[in-house]
C-alpha cells in the first residue's frame, strides 16, 4: 500500500535528484486526456545573472523538450477506474514524449483532479525558547498545528504553511532569524482519498516510472493560469476539465482553498449524446465544432448534421439547429458554474479583497463562456491560458494544458510543505544539551 504522507519526503528528495540529473517528466492524468511533458533543467539560471532580467517566475531554468498527449482511458471524474486502460494510456503518452525528447525519463511528477480534495485551515502556536526564530522553531510550530480528524482512508496531499505571525505581527513569509516571543502559523492542508492516490502511484509504477511528486491539478493549474498579481492579491482559478471541474483560491502566492466539482465537459458531451441520440464520439465532435452558450438569431437557421451509424437512414440523416445544441449545452454549463459558485461561497471567497476568477481548462474554450460565467460568478472573470514556458509546442499551449504547464512550475519552484522541515526534536536529553549550549552562548 502506498503511504502518501510517509513518502512525501522521499518524493521530494527524488525530485531534487532528478533535477540534478537534468530530466524529469510531468504527467497530467485527466479524464479526457493524459498529457506528458519532458523537462530538461539547464542548471543554474544563466539569465538571472544579467542585470534587469528576473528569473521569469522561475521557469527560465528549464525547457520542455518533449510533449505528448493522448486520449485518456479508464479515468472517470479524475480518478482511475480501469487501471490497465489507464496504464496503457500513460504508456502511450510517456513513450511519445520520450521519443520527441530522445531521452529516457525515469522520474515523473503526476497530478490528478479527482479524489475529492478537501481543504483545511490549521493554525499552531508556540512560545519561543530563544528570542530568535530558528528552523527548529518553524518545524515545531508546524508540528504544533492541531490536525483535525480528516477521516479514515484519506491522506494529506498538500500542507503549505501559508502565513507566519510573530507576536502581533502577521503576514510574515519567512520568520527565520526574526525576534519575538511567540510564533504562530497558519497552514493550508489538502486531503484526498488515499486509495485514489495509491491507484495512481501503482499505475505509474507499472509503467516502470518513479513517482517523484504528486500534486492536485487545481493547485497546479492555478499556478500556470494566474498571473503574478492575481496570485498576490487573491484570485480563484476554475479548471474546467473533462470529468471534474477543480477550483482553487490563491492569496499572497499561496493556495488557501481547493475543491472540485465532479462535473465537467464529459457531462456536456453525455447530455448531447443523450439528447440527440448519437454516439459519444459524434457528440464530442458536435460539441467542439458547434458548441456555444449564447443562442442568437442566426443559430436557429444553422443546421448541424447529427450523423450516426445505426444504418437507419432517417435516423442518421437528422439535423438539429445550433440553437437546439446550445439549449442542451447551456444548462449543464450553468449547473457546473453554479456548483463552482456555491463551493466558492462556502469557502468564503466573497470576503477576499480581490474577486478575480480565472477560467481555464479545456472546457473554458466554449464560445461565450466568459459572458455566461460573469453572470454567475461575478464581473471579474477572465479566460486564462497557461503561461508560456520555454520549448512548449504550439499544440500544447491551449487552456487544456494549464495543469501540465503548472506542473512544470511546481517542479521547478516548489513551495515549502510542512514535511520539508525536520521534525522537532523532543528528546529530553537533547533539550538539556540545548539548554547548556544556550547558557554558554548567553554567558560567554
Amino acid at each position, binding site marked *: 500500500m502506498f503511504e502518501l504522507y510517509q513518502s512525501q519526503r522521499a518524493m521530494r528528495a527524488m525530485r531534487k535528484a532528478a533535477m540534478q540529473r537534468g530530466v524529469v517528466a510531468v504527467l497530467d492524468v485527466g479524464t479526457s486526456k493524459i498529457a506528458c511533458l519532458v523537462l530538461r533543467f539547464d542548471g543554474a539560471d544563466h539569465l538571472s545573472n544579467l542585470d534587469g532580467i528576473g528569473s521569469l517566475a522561475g521557469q527560465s531554468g528549464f525547457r520542455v523538450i518533449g510533449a505528448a498527449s*493522448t*486520449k485518456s*482511458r479508464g479515468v472517470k471524474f479524475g480518478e482511475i477506474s480501469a487501471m490497465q486502460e489507464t496504464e*496503457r*494510456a500513460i*504508456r*502511450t503518452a*510517456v*513513450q511519445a514524449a*520520450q*521519443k520527441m525528447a*530522445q*531521452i*529516457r525519463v525515469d522520474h515523473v511528477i503526476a497530478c490528478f483532479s479527482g479524489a475529492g480534495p478537501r481543504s483545511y485551515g490549521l493554525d499552531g502556536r508556540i512560545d519561543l525558547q530563544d528570542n530568535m526564530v530558528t528552523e527548529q522553531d518553524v518545524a515545531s510550530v508546524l508540528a504544533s498545528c492541531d490536525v483535525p480528524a480528516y477521516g479514515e482512508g484519506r491522506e494529506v496531499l498538500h500542507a503549505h504553511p501559508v502565513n507566519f505571525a510573530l507576536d502581533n505581527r502577521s503576514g510574515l513569509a519567512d520568520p527565520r532569524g526574526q525576534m519575538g516571543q511567540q510564533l504562530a502559523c497558519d497552514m493550508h492542508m489538502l486531503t484526498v482519498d488515499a486509495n485514489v492516490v495509491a491507484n495512481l502511484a501503482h499505475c505509474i509504477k507499472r*509503467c*516502470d516510472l518513479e513517482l517523484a511528486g504528486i500534486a492536485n491539478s487545481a493547485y497546479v493549474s492555478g499556478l500556470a493560469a494566474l498571473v503574478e498579481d492575481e496570485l498576490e492579491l487573491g484570485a480563484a482559478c476554475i479548471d474546467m476539465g473533462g470529468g471534474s471541474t477543480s477550483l482553487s483560491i490563491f492569496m499572497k502566492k499561496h493556495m488557501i482553498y481547493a475543491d472540485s466539482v465532479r462535473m465537467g465537459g464529459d457531462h456536456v458531451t453525455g447530455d448531447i449524446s443523450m439528447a440527440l441520440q448519437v454516439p459519444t464520439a459524434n457528440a464530442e465532435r458536435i460539441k467542439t465544432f458547434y458548441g456555444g452558450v449564447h443562442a442568437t438569431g442566426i443559430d436557429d437557421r444553422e443546421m448541424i448534421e447529427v450523423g450516426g451509424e445505426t444504418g437507419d437512414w432517417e435516423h442518421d440523416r437528422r439535423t438539429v439547429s445550433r440553437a437546439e445544441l446550445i439549449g442542451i449545452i447551456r444548462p449543464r454549463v450553468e449547473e457546473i458554474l453554479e456548483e463552482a459558485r456555491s463551493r466558492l461561497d462556502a469557502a468564503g471567497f466573497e470576503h477576499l479583497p480581490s474577486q478575480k476568477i480565472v477560467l481555464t481548462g479545456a472546457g473554458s474554450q466554449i464560445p461565450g463562456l466568459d459572458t455566461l460565467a460573469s453572470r454567475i460568478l461575478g464581473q471579474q472573470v477572465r479566460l486564462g491560458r497557461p503561461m508560456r514556458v520555454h520549448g512548449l509546442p504550439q499544440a500544447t499551449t491551449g487552456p487544456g494544458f494549464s495543469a501540465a504547464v503548472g506542473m512544470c512550475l511546481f517542479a521547478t519552484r516548489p513551495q515549502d510543505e510542512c514535511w520539508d522541515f525536520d521534525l522537532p526534536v523532543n528528546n529530553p536529553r537533547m533539550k538539556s544539551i540545548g539548554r547548556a549550549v544556550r547558557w554558554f552562548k548567553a554567558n560567554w
Partner: protein
Amino acid sequence: MRSIRAVREKPKAEKQRCEPAPSRLSYRYERLMLTPVFRFGVRIVLPFAVAALGTTIWFSDQDHRDQVNMAIDDLRTSIVERPEFLVKAMSIEGASPSVADDIREILPVDFPVSSFDLDIDAMKMTVDGLSPVKSSSLRVKPGGVLQVNVVERNPVILWRMNDGLHLVDAEGYVVAESTQRDLHPNLPIMAGEGADTQTTEALQLMQAAGPLRERMRGLVRVGERRWDLVLDRDQRIMLPEWGAVQALERVVALSQVQEMLQRDLSVVDMRLGDRPTIRIAKRSVEAWWRIRDIRVGQE
C-alpha cells in the same frame, strides 16, 4: 427468435475501436533503446564486435587467408602489369662508356619490368656506390624508359701507392686505378699514406707552387701528418703541419729573389716557421770543406 446464449463473437468494430497503445514489451524496449549507454552499446559496440568476431573466425582458416592474399595479389598484378607501367629500356646519360657498362652490369633489371617493381632509391644507392660516379639521378620517363643521369668524378691527381697508381678526384675519392703514369701526363702526383684525405690541401699546394711547377716531381704525405714537396735534383721542401701553403709561398718567394733553389741544396726545412733551415747537398759541403782546408793550408 432470439438466441438465449450470448453472442460468442465480438463485433469487429469493437476491436477496431480499441485505442492504440504500445504494448508493455515495446514500451520497455523503447525505453531501453533511449538509455544512452545501451544505445551506444547496441549501435556501435555490438556491430563492431560482431564484425570483428566474424572476420576473426573467417580469417582463422588458412585457406581463407590464402584466398584473400591471392585475390589481393591478382588485383595488384592486373594493375602492375598494364602496358602503361612497363619499363622497356634504360638510357644512361653523362657517363663514359666504361662507366655506363658498369652501371648496366650492376643494376639488376631485366627489361621489360613494371615501374612498380623498380626500387629507384636502392638503384640510385647502387649507382652512387660506383667509385667513378659522383652523383646520379634515376627516373622513369614516359614511354617506358629508365633514365639514369650520371655525373662522373673527374680525376685531378695521381696517387702513387705501393700497389700502384690511383686516380683521385678533388674530394679525395679514388676514381680508378691507373697502370701507367704516361697515360695521364697532365696530372700531378702525390704519394704517402693518407694523402687522399688531404687532396684539397695538395691541390692548394700545387697552385701555390707556381714557378716551381716545372721542377716539381710531386707531393709526399709524411706520417699522415704533413707534406713534403719533392723537386728534381733530389731537392725536398719540408712543409709544416699547419700553414703549409703560406710556408710554400715563402719558399717560392725566397727562391725567386735569392735563387735559393738553384743552389745546391738538398732540403729546405720549413717545419718550424720561425726557424727555416736549409741543408746543403753533401757534395757541396765536402767541396766547401776542401776549399776551406786549401785556404787554411795556404795560410
